[in-house]
């Protein structure tokens, strides 16, 4: 059973879309308008679990009693719409979609006679998901509870002008472990940046050499030949890199073309460049 790896590639092709379409046709979800509202606010949601929680709340029952199949459908519709509206969805959302599709199918299938021992019961998974949503909801509620408490300097105020105090020197240090870690990392990162060494000096294939090379091979270039085949291959370590050979050969080729010794052509942007010796002037010009 590989819910994670198995379904992901499918997301990129039509198979997954079909499945979504099928789901939507077979069981139209009434809350589509609500989903639209949700979609517009996608940025406000941090992850698939948050979206699921929002959807689950629409069922208006205790989260532990929600219908997971219905939730799965709603989520898949949500994903489908998001994709149609070209929201870029993080992989997390798609992984959750495939997992839910899998869970839903298992919830709907008749229980096999002999169950594979390594697979947990779908009902257990559903219950675990519901519980997890409940946990997240509890945290959300506690955010509201905490932030609605009287907040210092927003709702309640301490003394505006405390009496002057005699400050005594103290041996206590105002420093945290986090500060220490931060100080350490900053320096190490600075050190790494200092020692940054973009390999070595880049050796270039000299233009004169490229010209000489082209003149040498020119007699053999009666047919259109790709630039890549004409440019010399790098020899050993430490010399110019392949890109430099290609670039210098092209430059030299353009020079020879200007001199009337060669011809260059390219069929499209970024296409292969072809070079050949200029055909002898048969009929004159």
């Amino acid at each position, binding site marked *: 059973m590989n819910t994670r790896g198995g379904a992901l590639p499918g997301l990129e092709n039509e198979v997954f879309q079909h499945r979504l379409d099928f789901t939507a046709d077979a069981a139209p979800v009434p809350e589509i308008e609500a989903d639209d509202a949700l979609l517009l606010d996608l940025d406000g949601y941090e992850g698939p679990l948050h979206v699921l929680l929002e959807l689950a709340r629409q069922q208006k029952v205790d989260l532990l009693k929600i219908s997971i199949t219905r939730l799965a459908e709603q989520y898949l519709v949500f994903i489908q719409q998001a994709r149609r509206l070209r929201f870029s969805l993080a992989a997390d959302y798609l992984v959750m979609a495939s997992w839910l599709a899998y869970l839903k199918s298992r919830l709907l299938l008749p229980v096999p006679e002999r169950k594979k021992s390594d697979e947990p019961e779908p009902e257990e998974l559903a219950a675990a998901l519901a519980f*997890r949503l409940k946990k997240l909801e509890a945290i959300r509620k*506690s955010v509201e509870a905490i932030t609605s408490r009287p907040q210092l300097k927003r709702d309640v105020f*301490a003394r505006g002008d405390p009496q002057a105090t005699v400050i005594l020197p103290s041996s206590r240090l105002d420093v945290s472990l986090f500060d220490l870690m931060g100080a350490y990392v900053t320096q190490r990162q600075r050190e790494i940046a200092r020692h940054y060494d973009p390999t070595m000096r880049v050796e270039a294939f000299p233009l004169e050499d490229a010209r000489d090379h082209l003149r040498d091979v020119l007699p053999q270039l009666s047919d259109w030949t790709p630039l890549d085949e004409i440019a010399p291959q790098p020899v050993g370590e430490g010399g110019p890199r392949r890109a430099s050979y290609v670039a210098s050969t092209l430059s030299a080729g353009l020079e020879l073309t200007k001199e009337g010794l060669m011809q260059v052509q390219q069929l499209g942007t970024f296409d292969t460049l072809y070079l050949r010796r200029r055909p002898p002037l048969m009929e004159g010009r």
Partner: protein
Amino acid sequence: MTPDLSAKLDIERAIEALLFAAAAPLSAADLARRLPEGADVGKALAALKARYADRGVTLEVVADKWQFRTAPDLSHLMVEEREEPRRLSKAALETLAIIAYHQPVTRAEIETIRGVGLSRGTLDVLHEMNLIRLRGRRRSPGRPVTYGTTEHFLEVFSLPSLHDLPGAADMRAAGLLDLNVPADFVIPEPGGAREAEDPIGLEEMEQVEFAQDFFESADGDRD
């Protein structure tokens, strides 16, 4: 006025003045240190709290310390004093709440509860605002660092102590503050790149409860 009564009132007056003048909340011990020996600080504080209960300034306990604060219902008058608090993102608030209710808690646990990876900077912001701190290390493989809230967190949100986090008892009773995950729970984890974590087994769970503060373990458990 009997001498006894007068002494009692004197203690109240003295505490009133001390708390009024202080720049930060004071503990009962702080107060006792600056009062005549034998002063019943607890009783005087209780009397003062009652005396100020329906005044414009009330006596509050924050982080186990005492402080005079303006009454919450008068906040609308305090326009000139108000400092617009730095707005925390939804992610930061949720992270803060998880740290507050689940502490000590590791980064991986925070991510599991939220179902999404913590973005860079979220913990930074909370550290910077002095709302969270490193608490210790979990006695589990890898000995990950755990986070907790600071005293400043209690002061900002007017909480007498961590026990007074709203709804914490109910959440605990409902098992919502358990950090363990059912054994064969396979919901996709956030931030796929992170290495899989071993679910924490039951017997390890007990150790988790005893996840130690750096400070607490300082005298025991030295390896």
